[in-house]
């Protein structure tokens, strides 16, 4: 590209000014991200000055093939997949439905949009504490609702599977607004003439959706699926706020944090096994690749087929 601001040495000025930002990015984010693969081959701890030794694939072997602990790890991996599947599918469907409905001229449309989007900016701490209170088992709103139908539940303090299901609910509740807004942005690019033409041709609501809206929404569909798949595979913070490190509910992300930085449950604090945690990070990374890449390729092919 033509550079207008001088010749020779002056051409270096952009590089010089770009350097701080890029250097910090490499140092704080990109470098550490890549270095995770190296740390996964060591017995690093979180203790300053402690020696770090290479132990090859030992961490991976222990993570995947050693007794009860590795069975727990594989359970966490399975749970991560279930979490990802449930969150992605439900959030996608709800977000799409909300967007299509709120793209109509309805009374109170802006109110609903704002309301659904609001939790996105709360952050996990507020989201988690709000729901802990909402699911208060002794006469809280959800407990009362359930009692009307003759049910009882401990919600977050109940069986692991049930507690886990509630985290899925809160995760969807918290992030559905982004999915909806991305769909709304996509819907707004569809020209109103197309709708009118379709309606004049006698298309009903469903046909309008199936033949006009759905294909033209392809770019937002792709963005949402990619963001939600990867986001939910890596998500774990709500587990920390809502449940703590509880057996039978852990997902990979939380397991990485807990093994890397120690986790206090009761009076027992586990040690900082950062090499091992780095290996777990790599397992999560491979999971993201194994799911993300084929989905990406599928979505791109589909987009080419539909939009040409």
């Amino acid at each position, binding site marked *: 590209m033509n550079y207008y*601001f001088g010749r020779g040495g002056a051409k270096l000025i952009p590089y010089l000014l770009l350097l*701080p930002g890029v250097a910090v990015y490499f140092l704080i984010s990109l470098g550490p991200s890549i270095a995770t693969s190296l740390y996964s081959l060591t017995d690093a701890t979180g203790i*300053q000055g402690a020696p770090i030794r290479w132990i090859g694939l030992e961490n991976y072997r222990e993570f995947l093939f050693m007794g009860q602990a590795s069975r727990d790890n594989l359970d966490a991996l399975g749970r991560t997949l279930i979490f990802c599947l449930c969150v992605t599918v439900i959030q996608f469907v709800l977000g799409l439905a909300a967007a299509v409905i709120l793209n109509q001229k309805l009374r109170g449309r802006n109110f609903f949009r704002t309301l659904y989007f609001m939790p996105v900016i709360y952050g996990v*701490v*507020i989201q988690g504490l709000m729901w802990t209170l909402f699911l208060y088992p002794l006469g809280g709103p959800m407990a009362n609702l359930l009692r009307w139908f003759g049910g009882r539940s401990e919600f977050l303090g109940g069986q692991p599977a049930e507690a886990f299901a509630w985290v899925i609910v809160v995760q969807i509740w918290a992030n559905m607004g982004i999915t909806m807004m991305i769909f709304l942005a996509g819907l707004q690019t569809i020209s109103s003439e197309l*709708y009118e033409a379709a309606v004049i041709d006698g298309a009903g609501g469903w046909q309008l959706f199936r033949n006009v809206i759905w294909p033209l929404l392809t770019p937002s569909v792709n*963005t949402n699926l990619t963001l939600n798949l990867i986001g939910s595979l890596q998500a774990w913070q709500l587990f920390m706020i809502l449940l703590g490190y509880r057996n039978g509910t852990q997902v990979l992300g939380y397991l990485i944090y807990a093994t890397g930085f120690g986790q206090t449950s009761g009076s027992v604090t586990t040690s900082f096994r950062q090499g091992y945690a780095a290996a777990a*990070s790599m397992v999560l990374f491979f999971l993201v690749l194994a799911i993300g890449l084929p989905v990406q390729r599928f979505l791109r092919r589909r987009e080419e087929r539909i939009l040409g």
Partner: protein
Amino acid sequence: MKKTAGATRLRLNWGEVFSYIFLILLAAAYLGPILMLLNTSLKTMPSFMRDATAFAKELNFKNFADAWVKANFPKYLLNTMIYAVSATLIYIVTSVFVTFPIARGYVKCANLLLTLYVVALFLPPSLIPQFQLILNLGLYNNPIGYILLFLVNPMGVMILVNFIKTLPRELDEAAALEGCGYFRFVVSIVFPLIRPAIATVVVLHSIGIWNEIIAPTIYLTNKNYYPITRGLIVFQGVYGSNWPTLAAAVLMLTAPMMILFLFLQRYIVSGLTSGSVKG
């Protein structure tokens, strides 16, 4: 209400009825937790114990005063603000100098550099080596080290690059002909012109810092350095069973976010959906 191009005109009545049923059911799930929080924050402890859901009759505003003092709110709020303001300021300035030459192609390998920001989404979590780095730099439990963590945000880079690309190149040429240097051009011409994008990134980035809970849990052990989120979790640990006071504390943290959002909704939404339409 504004007319939006592309609003569907489903004239069928049942369609509208179904729409409202869906919207209201969903709204209940969104309003419920907030109303419960508000209601609880106005109750006394005995009345909460008697019936957690019943409407607050006594309007016990003392909860807020209690939480404000006991949760050490003023101190933690100040910390959060210091972190958010300083990190966002440095981040924005450095990022504009990164994104402008990338968007313009004034540096070699501009596309490669941009790709390195995009792939961040897919890469392994940087948690462990990042901790080792901060530890070995001697910045563990240090506000400077904490701020350092927030000088990075790939999404903001995307938003800025996309926006700068819409500025006409002739601008650069004309300014250069007038004898304007690169640095001065970026500072006094580019900065003002990309204000909308900067506003979006500032809002998104500082919300991220405001809400962060993992980094303070990992990196800050000294209570004097805690940001407000960490303070709230500590407060929950101590007053976890005293929901009225805890609810007041949570609400005091939520309210500013809600108000901020109502004013800055446009920037937040445009930032989070940017790039999604083109795919």
